[in-house]
């Protein structure tokens, strides 16, 4: 089982770079899960400016995912 623990897909390799990447991914995920609700409310209220703001946030998150991997 040692091999499993060392190479497990969810294993922590402890490097700082991966820690930063994990924090970044968590932030992007949180935004992608929350912002669409704001977008929906803005669309429903007919507030186009706010809708553009929320959609831009989603776009930035997607761009960051492509850029950072």
């Amino acid at each position: 089982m040692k091999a499993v623990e060392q190479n497990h897909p969810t294993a922590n390799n402890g490097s700082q770079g991966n820690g930063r990447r994990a924090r970044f991914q968590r932030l992007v995920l949180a935004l992608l899960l929350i912002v669409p609700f704001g977008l929906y409310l803005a669309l429903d209220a007919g507030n186009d400016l706010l809708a553009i703001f929320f959609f831009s946030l989603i776009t930035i998150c997607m761009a960051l995912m492509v850029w950072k991997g």
Partner: protein
Amino acid sequence: MPRNTGVAASIIGRMQLTLLNWLLALLPVLVILVLMLVFNWGGSRAGAASWFIAILIANQVFAADARLIAYSQAKAIILSLNVLYVIWMALLLYHIADEAGAVKMIGESLPRLTSDRTMQALLLGWVFISFLQGLGGLGVPVAVTAPLLVGLGFSPVQSVIIASLGHAWAVNFGSMATAFLTLLAVTNLPAELLAPPAAVLLGSAAVICGVVVAYLAGGWKGLWRNLPATVLLGSVMGGVQYLLVVQGVWTLGTTGAAMAGLLVGIGWAHIQRARSPQPAPPPATKAIANLPADGQRRSLPLSFSAYAVLVVLAFALNLIHPIKTVLDRVQLRLTFPELQTGMGYVNSAESSRQISVFGHPGAILLYASLIAFAVYSLAGYYRPGAAKRILERVGRGAVTSSLGVVAMVGMAVVMSQSGMTSLVAEGVSRSFGERMFPLVSPFIGVLGAFITGSNSNSNVLFAVLQMRTAELLGLSVPLILAAQTAGGSLGSIIAPAKVIVGCSTVGLEGKEDQVIGKLLIYGMIPVVFVAIMMLFLRGT
């Protein structure tokens, strides 16, 4: 069903079905294919890139305005949350059991029941791994089981192939039926309609997976010797899965089936041992396996208790209506107006799929997780700091896959809402026709899973396309969708991402080509079987 040519016009509006338009509509999917297979990008990164392509094409070629695209993202998040709720909680339950040493205990106990290597491979690499898949996927079942098979004397390549093939049938209703839940979410069709044909196809494929595992482990002799056990276990697992999904407990389709398989398998091994003189394996089933690092003994029944709790809760909360009614009181649901593209493709006003905050399959997993944690804590199975370690592992495992789901669902909903999926379906239906399409349908599911590494993502990419094609050709929609998700389930094992995880646990890093080549051959056997079944079933 008669062929309804009128449907075509209403589905694709004023969009022209030309080769260029068809290729442009398919481009986001092709981009994912190239980025993942050629450039080795992960699902989340490739999904995000194709999200941009989908939006660009939807707006510039298919005249989807900003309002339609924006609403599509709100729709996508509800679909994503439906799936993510289950993924997160399934991971939580798995790590609660794993941290307690329960998964290791179960895995090490099974091979001690028999000295027949083929039967050991069947119990571990077919039944037990399916049980693990029932609880949570993401490559974990292969990562846990392949090293155990190596420990029994199988070669690393053999071990990864056996473990991969053994659980291929179990992916769709596994991970608390995440892939099936995705199918329901993207097609907006009821589970009662889609679950039975999917269970028939995958239950039959279970037997074939077992036969191939027996052959890989013991050659023709091993297969012949264990054929009765293989057919019996496969029939039990396929049958129990069918009964569970027909009763509406589809979240436990794989888990319940594999638990029944484990019980029958253990019983069969005991009977065989009593009948024929074999070298007596060390007694492990009654109570005690190897002592783990903390020196604390684990009992097999207590190790299973987390899953027993889950089964009881799932049945109780699904079948006792007063409890279900109370839990279903808090619902998350959005309503959407009618939206139309500049080319006349219409999305009717609709409510999103509702998320029952306390009655969702994810919530049931959460209740089972909390009870299991309390049971293992009382039994003294945890070292200090266990809760923190469990939550950290869940977080690490969930984030990347969640990003992939959100990006790909976002892309797929844009494609669907702008009419791109319908145009692709129109092209496919005209190319293959109603006679050939049922044969091709499972392979489309395989392609999706191969590209994305996931049955769920295959369903996100292709389920609506398959549904529209079936409608256009006058074929049974539930049957074609069953073939889609069955293909996705069986095809997910050959996805490079999953093979890499399996290989990394048995010292085959960098030698994945040895495994993929053989998996492409053996993994196609159950898919071809499903395709042949489709030829017979299409007329029913």
